[in-house]
């Protein structure tokens, strides 16, 4: 039916043929084959190169395939080996790798570098918090070889006056050191006097020598910046974090427990590693109580009277 329609169409098959010839003639007239010889040569060269390239690619592919399977000819019959080398498999595997990587990262994986960064970040925050005008009181327990442990309690009493009480573990008083005068304050509660802590290092009392670097915030900050070798940080569940630092010169480590609300140290334990005895010895433990600083005006007798009146 369609054949008949086509033959009976107003144009007819002869007309169609004539139209085709006309179009061909028109195309030949429009796109004349009058390329300059150098261009024609270049085109021919390109064509030959293209054909050679295609042939070469095909040969390479076959050769590569045969090479890959020459040594493991017994695998030829196995379907899944061919399947493994499919492009789609590679794409799926790569996408799985991305998803797996993202999953491991978001699930909180950690390595040595991340641990070091945590210790560093925590110590930077702790040192910053300590140097931000904080004052403290502390008590220290220090062990001695073949003797009873010593207890130190450092109390702030008033501006320019601090008291260090040294006693044995059974509360037998041994010595009381009064630190008075502007240059002798350890850590007071009044703003602008903290700078005098630097004089702490001048104490020559042998009883104070082992702990002298742990009594004032500024001393702690300076040691943290210049001497302490940061090793590890561990977050505890009860709002505390413990970071361990090494004192390479003394073959000892410090365990600094930090309150994670204030990022101020709560305790510092100095532990000596006795390699020959394969045990750890607690040298001392310092407990800190950090205070809110008061302005000097609040401590003048006049302001105390005014507050009593109020």
């Amino acid at each position, binding site marked *: 039916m369609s054949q008949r329609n086509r033959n009976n169409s107003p144009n007819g098959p002869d007309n169609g043929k004539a139209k085709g010839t006309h179009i061909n003639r028109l195309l030949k007239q429009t796109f004349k084959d009058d390329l300059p010889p150098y261009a024609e040569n270049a085109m021919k060269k390109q064509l030959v190169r293209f054909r050679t390239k295609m042939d070469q690619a095909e040969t390479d592919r076959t050769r590569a395939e045969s090479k890959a399977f020459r040594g493991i000819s017994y695998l030829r019959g196995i379907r899944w080996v061919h399947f493994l080398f499919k492009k789609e498999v590679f794409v799926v595997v790569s*996408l799985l790798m991305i998803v797996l990587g993202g999953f491991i990262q978001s699930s909180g994986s950690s390595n040595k*570098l991340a641990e*070091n*960064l945590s210790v560093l970040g*925590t110590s*930077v*925050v702790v040192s910053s918090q300590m140097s931000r005008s904080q004052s403290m009181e502390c008590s220290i327990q220090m062990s001695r070889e073949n003797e009873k442990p010593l207890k130190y309690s450092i109390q702030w009493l008033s501006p320019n006056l601090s008291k260090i009480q040294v006693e044995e573990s059974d509360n037998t008083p041994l010595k009381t050191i009064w630190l008075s005068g502007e240059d002798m304050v350890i850590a007071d509660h009044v703003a602008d006097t903290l700078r005098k802590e630097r004089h702490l290092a001048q104490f020559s009392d042998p009883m104070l020598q082992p702990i002298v670097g742990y009594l004032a915030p500024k001393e702690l900050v300076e040691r943290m910046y210049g*001497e302490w070798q940061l090793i590890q940080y561990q977050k505890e569940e009860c709002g505390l974090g413990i970071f361990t630092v090494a004192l390479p010169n003394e073959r000892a480590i410090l365990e600094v427990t930090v309150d994670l609300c*204030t990022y101020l140290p709560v305790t510092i334990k100095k532990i000596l590693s006795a390699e020959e005895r394969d045990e750890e010895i607690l040298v001392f433990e310092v407990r800190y109580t950090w205070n809110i600083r008061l302005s000097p005006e609040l401590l003048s007798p006049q302001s105390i009277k005014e507050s009593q009146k109020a």
Partner: protein
Amino acid sequence: MTRTTNSKKILVVFARILVVCCLVFAVILSGKFTDLMSGPDFIFVLLGGVTLTLMSFSFKEIGLALKHTSGRPDSAEEQRKSGYFWETAVRNFWMMGVLGSVISFVIALGNSEGGIFGIATRMSASYLSAVYGMIFAVICTVPASKISGILNRQSKEERQNVLEESEDINIPFLKFETVIWYALFIFVLGWAIFTPLMGMAFEGPIKPQDLFLHWPSLLVVLGGTIAITFFVGNAAAGRFFTVGFALTGFLATLMGFVQAMFGFSSRGIQEIAAAITFILSSCFVALLGMMLVGNPLEDRSVKAGRGQKPLTLSRIAWFVFPLVVLILLFFTFILIVTPIQKG
């Protein structure tokens, strides 16, 4: 006559290099820039850059490039190859400098000797590698631009002939000398990573894999690169590996920064630390992938004549991605040394 002129030109080039060397030695001896001197970093960048270049070019090609730099006339095709050699030298030194900075930065974080001050000082010093890389790159830019000037002066017709007559050269995938340069590069890399970590820490030597191998970033960068390369569909030529590594590296660092931001909002130091580790590790893997896989494949493709020029995207990746890494290192440094304010 031509030979005499060439010899004279080579002598002039050597005399210039000698003058520059004298100036550099004078500066070193003056001792005024001791903070900017680091022998191991200098050696790492120099050796690494040279080895990377030798991975892609033979001694013959290098010799020819040096001759072209001294003004020896040659065909446009040869000049183009020499220009490409100098371009790769610029790229290699620049990337090597940035890789050196990343390595030094990670090692600075791994070694806590000297407390916070010690770490911060070493982190700052890690930028020296990038400075050296940049200096070498600038030196190599001079001959590159000289050859490019010569090519620009050549007539259009000559350049057209080069395009028409250039034919594909069959370059074997792995030659013996290439394997040697790969081995040497890995040795230089190992030396830069292992030596500073050997027996310096109080708690014993740190294993390099503990610092440099972070599985999530390795998976993301490698997976992303393979996916991009296969999606583009030019995997056989391997030309898209460079762009793939750079893009996925960049993407991974952005992911890391998002995680760091979340860490800031929740004030979780450990989360921020994990994010920074991810960023550093991703940068390291991406740079290494570009240098070991992407760039040699790209160079091979260009030399084989499959494309007359490297991809524009590759060129952007060569120079922009290391710059981005350097900027990220700076931000990471700021993130680390800036305390998160509490209370």
